[in-house]
């Protein structure tokens, strides 16, 4: 009986997708209710998607090239941000003196969204990989630092006292008690950071770039090829979801038994 109910809901889910595609096909492909420059035909979008793997026109690169360019920049910024951000958060939470000096500076840049730095970095470093990586770096730095900080601060006092009683050194307390406590929280931060890195990358590519998925959708708009825009958006969405899923898999392996879902 319960299995039957599950099947019913699954069926409704499938139905909803089919319904949307059908409406799209009916309204745009058959009835021509909107112009092709505003909303593409379903069939055309699919064929553009397939063709884009092999043809470089009209934006100068195939889908795979755009994809790898975007991924490269995003990962550069992301790795840099995590390498700096997580230790910074841990240090700030563990050493009170350091916290008192670093925290106000951190609070100054914290409310500024990563993408607000784009014009500044473009003027300072041109439109290459560096300014984009820096924008992503700042976007990643903030969530990873904040989460590492909160994670360490959540360490239960009782656990630290146990460490004291058994004569653990400060470093032992940090590495054996505080950091393992903070791991699930740090991973949450890493996933939030991945989302913000990906969206900062798209913004940076929309504004100044000569390749990448953000550039693809921007070109698609300027020549009114809505099918191209949609293909680019789908790629951006799918890649973002895959990156998040990948991090989730790492999280399950690394933070095993540390109340990670």
């Amino acid at each position: 009986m319960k299995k039957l109910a599950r099947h019913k809901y699954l069926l409704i889910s499938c139905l909803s997708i089919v319904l949307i595609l059908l409406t799209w096909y009916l309204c745009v492909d058959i009835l021509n209710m909107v112009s092709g420059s505003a909303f593409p035909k379903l069939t055309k979008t699919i064929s553009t998607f397939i063709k884009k793997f092999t043809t470089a026109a009209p934006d100068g690169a195939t889908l795979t090239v755009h994809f790898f360019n975007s991924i490269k920049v995003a990962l550069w910024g992301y790795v840099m941000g995590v390498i700096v951000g997580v230790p910074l958060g841990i240090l700030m939470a563990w050493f009170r003196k350091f916290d008192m000096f670093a925290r106000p500076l951190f609070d100054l840049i914290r409310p500024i969204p990563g993408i607000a730095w784009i014009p500044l970095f473009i003027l300072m470093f041109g439109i290459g990989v560096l300014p984009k990586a820096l924008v992503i770096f700042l976007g990643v730095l903030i969530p990873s630092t904040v989460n590492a900080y909160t994670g360490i601060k959540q360490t239960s006092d009782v656990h630290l006292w146990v460490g004291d009683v058994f004569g653990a050194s400060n470093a032992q307390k940090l590495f054996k008690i505080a950091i393992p406590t903070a791991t699930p929280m740090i991973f949450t931060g890493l996933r939030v950071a991945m989302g913000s890195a990906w969206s900062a990358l798209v913004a940076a590519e929309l504004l100044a770039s000569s390749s990448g998925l953000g550039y693809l959708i921007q070109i698609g708009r300027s020549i009114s090829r809505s099918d191209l825009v949609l293909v680019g958006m789908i790629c951006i969405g799918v890649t973002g979801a895959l990156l998040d899923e990948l991090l989730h898999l790492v999280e399950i392996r690394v933070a095993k038994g540390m109340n990670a879902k």
Partner: protein
Amino acid sequence: MKKKKTPEVWICGIVSVFAFLLLWQIGCSVSELGKMIPGPITVTGAVLKSMVSRSIGGHTLWIHIGYSLLRVLTGYILGSALGVVVGLAMGWNRVVEAFITPIFRLIRPIPPIAWIPISILWFGLGFQAKVFLIVLASFCNVTLNAWAGAKSVDPQLIGAAKMLGASKSQIFFTIVMPASVPQIFAGLQVAMSSSWTTVLAAEMVRSTEGLGWMIVTGQTNLDMTQILVGIVAIGVVGFILVAVMRRMEDILCRWNKGKR
């Protein structure tokens, strides 16, 4: 857990911020850096000047802030209201949930910023396109949280209400909805900062006024001071928006304080 700030913390904070500003000022006046970016004194002067004179794009700083805020708040209110309704409906009714989940799964991973080009194709360059983007940005976050909130209501409470003969609508309005308010507020917080980011991006791509426009024209005119004035304003307004939301949550969810 929160400890009261001691004077020591204040002194250290002031010292470190002051040291940073001093370093920036000295770096600008002594080295090559000065040719690239203006020092803090110039920037402060420019901020004050732009507050009173129409020095940037024919508007004062206040007008630019006002345009950005108007766009954010219109979209945010629409998007959040829609998100709460859809999210609660998804958490309450399994048919609705099964129907909307796949659509939601499709839309959610696409960052709102990636909708900018298509929103321009659909709505043109004006106010509507920006509001559409912010509706999207806030809708996804709020829906997700309202949905999770309605799903995580303690089943014992619902069971108890059923046993005492509460009708379906009574259960929904007196148990499910209040119980999901803290989660919804968490979503509203995230949605606020994501909306603020999105409006900037939208203004940077196409606009004729607003804070995002301000920094991007600073870039095209090679005017570093204007960019920095914009960044300062963006940071301050963003900070105030988040602080207001937090204050509202403190007041409206006071009953839940022990749990958080």
